């Protein structure tokens, strides 16, 4: 119960933890996937594993957009910026992410015009301010950021700003969940559904998981108590032999999602036939492409794209970790060749990746413990 005492209501945490112990059948082993990288970060930060019984295992899902972006896309984006002399604008999260030929920061040092923006709207503003230059926004993210990119493109079109384009890497969460469920070495009992993605898509898109796959889904908030309550809700369903979609995060997530955001996405994007996910491989209809009506603002249609393919080293077992077959520390490269400072695999790239989260909170704790023990000895 490392961090729980910092929390406002330790009593409620204890209550929820007791309820989980009461509901969990001691003869069973439960495997629950939290889909969202924000949840993964919170679970490690709050040491939630310490308040859960041993037979409840949390599997960390694919919901970290920086982690699942194939390296080759970064190389492609930077190649366009270099050869076409355009400003490469991206979120700060992207700046240290390595492509095969270096990260955006390293390209900046070599003379490419790379800028950090905090919003796609800022990238458009950059284009307004630099009419003599072309600004390409390197867009990444799930449904939390895709509507903002969509609205920005609608503004660019309405104002007819011609020196702006988007290199679109937006992905959608549902096909990734489907790919994980389809994988033969996967056994899951239920899902903690993403919180902020669900503010956009609502709870309906998860219904097939309950109806067709027979697995309960509970969309959850990010606080320790939210996550524990979501696990209670999942266990109650499992105990009753039910599979439904429930919303624990009602205070923020409307069941129907955000219609204006969904409309903007539908206006600007269409599904790609397939897209590569780092660690998971190609998943059909899992990513967004800019519609032909917006072709003038689509960097992939405006500029020649090298279509770089980079395969991760075979020794990196990201796919197995993503599917919960291996724990981060069980990968051969973990903490040795692959660290947050020098990520080799996808999941070490961002703090929301399960390997990086594990490294920051668990690995360091263990290492510190070893040091204390050896200094005492």
């Amino acid at each position, binding site marked *: 119960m490392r961090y729980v005492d910092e929390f406002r209501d330790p009593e409620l945490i204890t209550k929820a933890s007791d309820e989980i112990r009461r509901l969990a059948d001691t003869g069973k082993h439960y495997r629950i996937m939290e889909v969202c990288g924000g949840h993964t970060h919170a679970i490690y930060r709050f040491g939630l594993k310490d308040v859960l019984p041993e037979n409840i295992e949390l599997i960390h899902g694919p919901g970290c957009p920086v982690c699942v972006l194939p390296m080759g896309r970064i190389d492609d984006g930077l190649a366009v910026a270099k050869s076409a002399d355009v400003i490469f604008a991206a*979120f700060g999260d992207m700046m240290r992410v390595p492509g095969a030929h270096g990260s955006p920061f390293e390209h900046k040092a070599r003379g490419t015009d790379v800028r950090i923006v*905090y919003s796609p*709207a800022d990238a458009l503003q950059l284009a307004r301010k630099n009419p003599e230059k072309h600004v390409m926004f390197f867009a990444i993210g799930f449904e939390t950021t895709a509507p903002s990119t969509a609205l920005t493109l609608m503004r660019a079109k309405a104002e007819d700003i011609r020196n702006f384009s988007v290199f679109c890497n937006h992905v959608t969460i549902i096909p990734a969940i489907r790919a994980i469920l389809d994988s033969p070495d996967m056994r899951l009992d239920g899902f903690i559904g993403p919180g902020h993605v669900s*503010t956009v898509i609502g709870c309906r898109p998860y219904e097939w998981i309950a109806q067709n796959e027979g697995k309960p889904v509970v969309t959850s908030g990010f606080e320790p108590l939210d996550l524990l309550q979501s696990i209670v809700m999942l266990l109650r369903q499992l105990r009753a032999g039910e599979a439904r979609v429930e919303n624990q995060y009602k205070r923020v997530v409307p069941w129907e999602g955000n219609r204006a955001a969904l409309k903007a996405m539908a206006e600007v994007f269409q599904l790609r036939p397939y897209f590569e996910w780092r660690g998971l491989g190609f998943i059909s209809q899992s990513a967004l492409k800019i519609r032909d009506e917006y072709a003038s603002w689509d960097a992939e249609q405006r500029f020649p794209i090298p279509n770089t393919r980079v395969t991760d080293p075979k020794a990196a077992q990201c796919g197995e970790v993503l599917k919960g077959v291996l724990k981060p520390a069980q990968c051969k490269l973990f903490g040795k060749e692959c660290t947050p400072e020098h990520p080799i695999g996808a999941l070490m790239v961002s703090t929301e990746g399960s390997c990086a989260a594990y490294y920051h909170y668990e690995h360091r704790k263990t290492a510190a413990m070893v040091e204390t023990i050896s200094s005492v000895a």
Partner: protein
Amino acid sequence: MCLAIPGKIVSLNPDPMHLEACLGTVEVTGVRRKVDLGLLKDDMPAVGEWVLIHVGFAMTKISEQDAMEQMHLLTMLGETEQAIAEVRGYGLDVNDDHVPARAGSSPYAVSDGFVFPKGLPPE
């Protein structure tokens, strides 16, 4: 990028340069910046209401209590500074007139060609 930042609407700013005029000023722990309210046009927040912001766009209305809890959560996750840096970084109100700000008048510092909010030097 994945952070949801709670902000209080302090004013609504119709901006003729923007489609549907959906900008608003929010305050996040004392920092005021413009954000885009276009994704809430069906349920526009009023001054004094709270929203959750992702990458410069308000995504959903929340209660004041939930806003406080979200800020507390960011603090506990060690992401408050990053959140403030993100909000400071929103560039929508720096150049309302679309003219680059004069040197010295900008809330941003330029270092190595990058623009950073002042007081937050690059790592």
